[in-house]
């Protein structure tokens, strides 16, 4: 079971090479701080795996950190239980029930003669005393962190019934001084890689549905132009560079088309274009601002921001461009809509009391709206692929940081770098082997 891990490396293409910097993962790492927790936390123990202490990279500490960070689990301390169990036969369930653990992760890591590692992992139900999951992975040492995220995803899935997103990645922009970097990192902020560096602004990164490419807007030619860049090869192409602004790329769910915003015919309007830049078709026909398109998961409709009613509000139209209907009615500034993965709701930014900008969530069927955050300068919300968390940009103490909030508003996290402003995040899709 080889893991498909995409890493961005070896930039070396003609024009792009001038702009790209060597990646500096060490000082670019995002640090995460948890600010809230779920209502019901499942107590789970993650026992250090046999053979783990000999490895350059711990695995169970990453698993435990993932579970703790999402706010739905309480990590049960395994210190003092001897001997540490690594096989089901070695587990004395009384020990773990005494510590209120409801589930228990155990395992081992073996060095194979061919230099690879074999990671064995089991998840046990401490109450019913049965095995919930059992897996083994043959990996290279470089894949230890990714394997830890995979194990955390399995535990999350077995214990909550939802898909785990610890193995996913996020894209965002870091601005330090006059320098802008488009970066991609693991969802826990580790392993940041620079995709593009420029002395001109970069905004609006958007993941292709298969997670292999990013569309983004770069001002490197002194005006906004949309590019699509492959993460594996770093090869990129211009998607749209028409007269005026080219911006706000959003992929269709099948990855074949993008909704984009152009000013070539006057004000900002929404167009549809094939991923190779061909077949441009205008979708919206208003004399006002239409921008920030987001596809519904079924690909049938697009939600977007428009000020056609006098203030920016969220509208929905068919992918043909017909039948635009207004969705938001509360407040005079509602922008940046993103569909939820199940298509039943959307997130957006609402201005509250004229001064605060907050992440909000609205149910499409009922129209019910909920403000999720208590920060004040929120921007660019997007859903985790399981719909349970939202990632957004905000500002603390005059610095741009990333933050995440659960879709019920209970769990809150902050992600920040040591240097610079972080902004324009988008949560990537599930990796292919999830």
């Amino acid at each position: 079971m080889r893991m498909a891990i995409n890493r961005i490396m070896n930039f070396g293409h003609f024009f792009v090479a001038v702009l790209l910097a060597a990646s500096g993962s060490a000082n670019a790492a995002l640090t995460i701080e948890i600010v809230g927790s779920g209502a019901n936390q499942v107590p789970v123990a993650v026992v250090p795996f046999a053979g783990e202490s000999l490895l350059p990279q711990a695995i169970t500490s990453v698993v435990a950190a993932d579970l703790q960070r999402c706010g739905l689990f309480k990590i049960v301390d395994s210190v003092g239980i001897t001997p540490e169990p690594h096989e089901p036969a070695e587990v004395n369930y009384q020990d773990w029930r005494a510590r209120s653990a409801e589930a228990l992760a155990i395992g081992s890591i073996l060095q194979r003669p061919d230099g690879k590692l074999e990671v064995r992992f089991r998840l046990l139900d401490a109450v019913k005393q049965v095995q919930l999951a059992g897996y083994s992975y043959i990996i290279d040492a470089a894949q230890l962190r990714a394997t830890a995220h995979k194990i955390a995803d399995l535990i999350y899935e077995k214990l909550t019934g939802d898909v785990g997103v610890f193995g996913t990645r996020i894209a965002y922009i870091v601005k330090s001084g006059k320098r802008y970097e488009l970066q991609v990192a693991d969802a826990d902020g580790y392993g940041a890689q620079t995709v593009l560096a420029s002395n001109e602004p970069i905004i609006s990164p958007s993941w292709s549905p298969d997670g292999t490419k990013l569309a983004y807007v770069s001002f490197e030619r002194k005006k906004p132009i949309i590019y699509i860049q492959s993460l594996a090869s770093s090869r990129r192409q211009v998607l749209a560079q028409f007269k005026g602004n080219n911006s706000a790329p959003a992929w269709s769910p099948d990855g074949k088309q993008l909704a984009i915003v152009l000013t070539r015919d006057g004000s900002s309007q929404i167009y549809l274009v094939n991923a190779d830049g061909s077949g441009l078709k205008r979708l919206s026909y208003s004399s006002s601002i239409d921008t920030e398109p987001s596809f519904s998961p079924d690909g049938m409709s697009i939600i977007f921001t428009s000020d056609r009613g006098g203030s920016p509000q969220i509208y929905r139209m068919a992918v043909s461009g017909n039948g635009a209907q207004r969705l938001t009615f509360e407040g005079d500034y509602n922008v940046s809509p993103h569909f939820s993965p199940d298509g039943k709701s959307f997130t957006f930014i609402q201005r509250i009391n004229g001064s605060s900008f907050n992440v909000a969530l609205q149910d499409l069927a009922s129209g019910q709206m909920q403000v999720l955050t208590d920060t004040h300068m929120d921007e660019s919300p997007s859903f985790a692929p399981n719909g349970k968390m939202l990632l957004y940009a905000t500002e603390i103490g005059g610095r741009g940081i990333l933050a995440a909030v659960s879709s019920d508003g209970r769990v809150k996290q902050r992600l920040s770098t040591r240097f610079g402003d972080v902004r324009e995040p988008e949560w990537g899709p599930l990796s292919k082997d999830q």
Partner: protein
Amino acid sequence: MNKILLGTLLVSLLAGCAGQDVKEQPKAGVEDKSASQTAQTAPSEQKAVEANPLKDPNNILSKRSVFYDFDKYDVKNEYKPLVEAHSKYLTGHKDAKVAVQGNCDERGSREYNLALGNRRADSVRKMMNVLGVPDSQIETVSFGEEKPRATCHDESCWKENRRADIVYQGE
């Protein structure tokens, strides 16, 4: 004359600045405000500045910025004389071209602000159109909230950044 002109050009080149020495025939070049102070030490430069109404601090044409209210893109009455003056200059100088650059304060969505900056630039362009300036002399561009002139995080800076700038080609 040739010597003087050459001297001016040299000073301009050394200062990394172009276009300061020409009167009414703007050249392509990069805006560089820091360099213009160095260039002013040349005596011929002073003359050129006086002769250029676009650079004369006493002339309304030296004023280039139209300011806006939050989430608004209509040209307020107080800025109409400014746009009118530039329109008159452009209709009288068919070889002159301007870029109108729309900007926004940092609040709210970057993409919406990019669209709003476009509307701000467009509001100036449309007013110029009405006053007889053809589109061939005007190019609009939006920087959204990406190029703030003032960088603090309150209204004192935000009002500076809600702005459309009229930039002559060659400046």
